[in-house]
């Protein structure tokens, strides 16, 4: 998957959990959970949606690596390349 495709994956995952958030207005270097007011249940739903569309395993210890959209994309790209 290209970075643009991964970006779409994150966008879709967020849209399912937080439909009222306009993805394009988010700061991709700011903390995602704070910006979107995601609690732990919301965040797990986001992680599950990313897993469903990419098949990537995301262990709990890696959650800090998903803090911002930029970090998410870096992390997912690195995981993809290891497939």
């Amino acid at each position: 998957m290209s970075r643009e495709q991964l970006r779409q994956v994150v966008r879709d995952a967020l849209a399912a959990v937080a439909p009222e958030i306009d993805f394009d207005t988010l700061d991709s270097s700011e903390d995602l959970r704070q910006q979107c007011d995601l609690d732990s249940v919301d965040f797990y739903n986001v992680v599950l949606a990313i897993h469903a569309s990419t098949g990537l395993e995301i262990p709990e210890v890696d959650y800090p690596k998903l803090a911002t959209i930029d970090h998410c994309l870096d992390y997912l790209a690195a995981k993809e390349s290891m497939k």
Partner: protein
Amino acid sequence: MGEFRMPSLGADMESGTLVEWRVEVGDAVTQGQVVAEVETDKGLIEIEIFESGIVDEIVAQAGDVVPVGAVLARIGTGASRPAAKVVREPAAARPEPSSLPGAAAERQTAPQGAPPRASLTPAVGPLAPRPASRPAVSPRARKRAAELGVQLERVTGSGIDGAVTTADVERAAAPAGGSQKGAAAPAAAKSPRDYKAAMRGAIAAAMTRSKREIPHYYLSTQIDMSRALSWLETINQARPMTERLLYSVLLLRAVALAARKVPEMNGHWLDNAFKPAADVHVGVAISLRSGGLVAPALHDVDKQALDQLMPKLLDLVKRVRAGVMRSSEVSDATITVTSVGEQGVDTVYGVIYPPQVAIVGFGKIREKPWIAGGRVSARPLITATLSADHRASDGHRGGLFLTAIDHLLQEPERL
């Protein structure tokens, strides 16, 4: 033969707008099945049926504003109907307004009154035949359809397997804009501002009643979460990522089991007396990003294992976020839990949602000094509070209840 009526989804609800039927005349229905969708101040609510049988007659039509208690449909055994197929066709095509005077009076505009939608045929032709198997509709698309007054059965989906998307709904609504909008939108589209105002009104009414009528007492305790969290970490490591447990579900389960031990916390204050509830349905307070708050019930939390509850909690939160709840979730809660503190504050004292008699609040888990066995160590602590109705219980029992929650969380493997 049973009459399926518009349920009351809150003390202040007078009527609801029927948005869509999910069943047709001749369909078999089972208790608990979602059969219709109704728009209320609380948003779009999926209405479940309380008996099993066959849909004999559909009385209210999409777009009708139906008072609480009015008949929506008649449910029978199916034996009395000579020819289900013959009945089904006109019901699906819906050539005439309902013959019932009450329903007809409530109806604002028959769909047939809509002007032709030339630009949209065949996608939303007014008499487009309904596909044999109903395609999926995303909850968000349903919500949008309700807002725009679009009848979903007239929308052809462009998604996977013909699933109806939000874009499809908006396309279907587009030609009905301008001066024709009112006529083409019997579901009386409310603007987001209206929903917000209606939601604030519903919260204001419930909370004012609570503070006026319920003599609250408040208790608080700090709970050491280190055992619960390390137990979770261990079992989650050994699980596939789709089967993880979150600490929220431990809290809900501990509250439900404690409510079994101290039943004065679980039930309703009705007619000047406490009516304990036989089941423990925990209302989960969820604040909406668009403003407002709902507390839908997670059912039978005392009777289900953590593994059964977790996917149900995830599903509930997801559906609420998308603006769709079920009727039983709106009305069934016997006690409420609020974790508004998760995002930052240490302590939250909830306001009881009448006619319930207790609300448990959880703050943010923070590492703090903790003294055990004469030694100071850093532990993850959570502050649990109880706001309870002094008419139904006294502080001593409330204290036992909070203590029970603490004890349960110290043995997470038994939850």
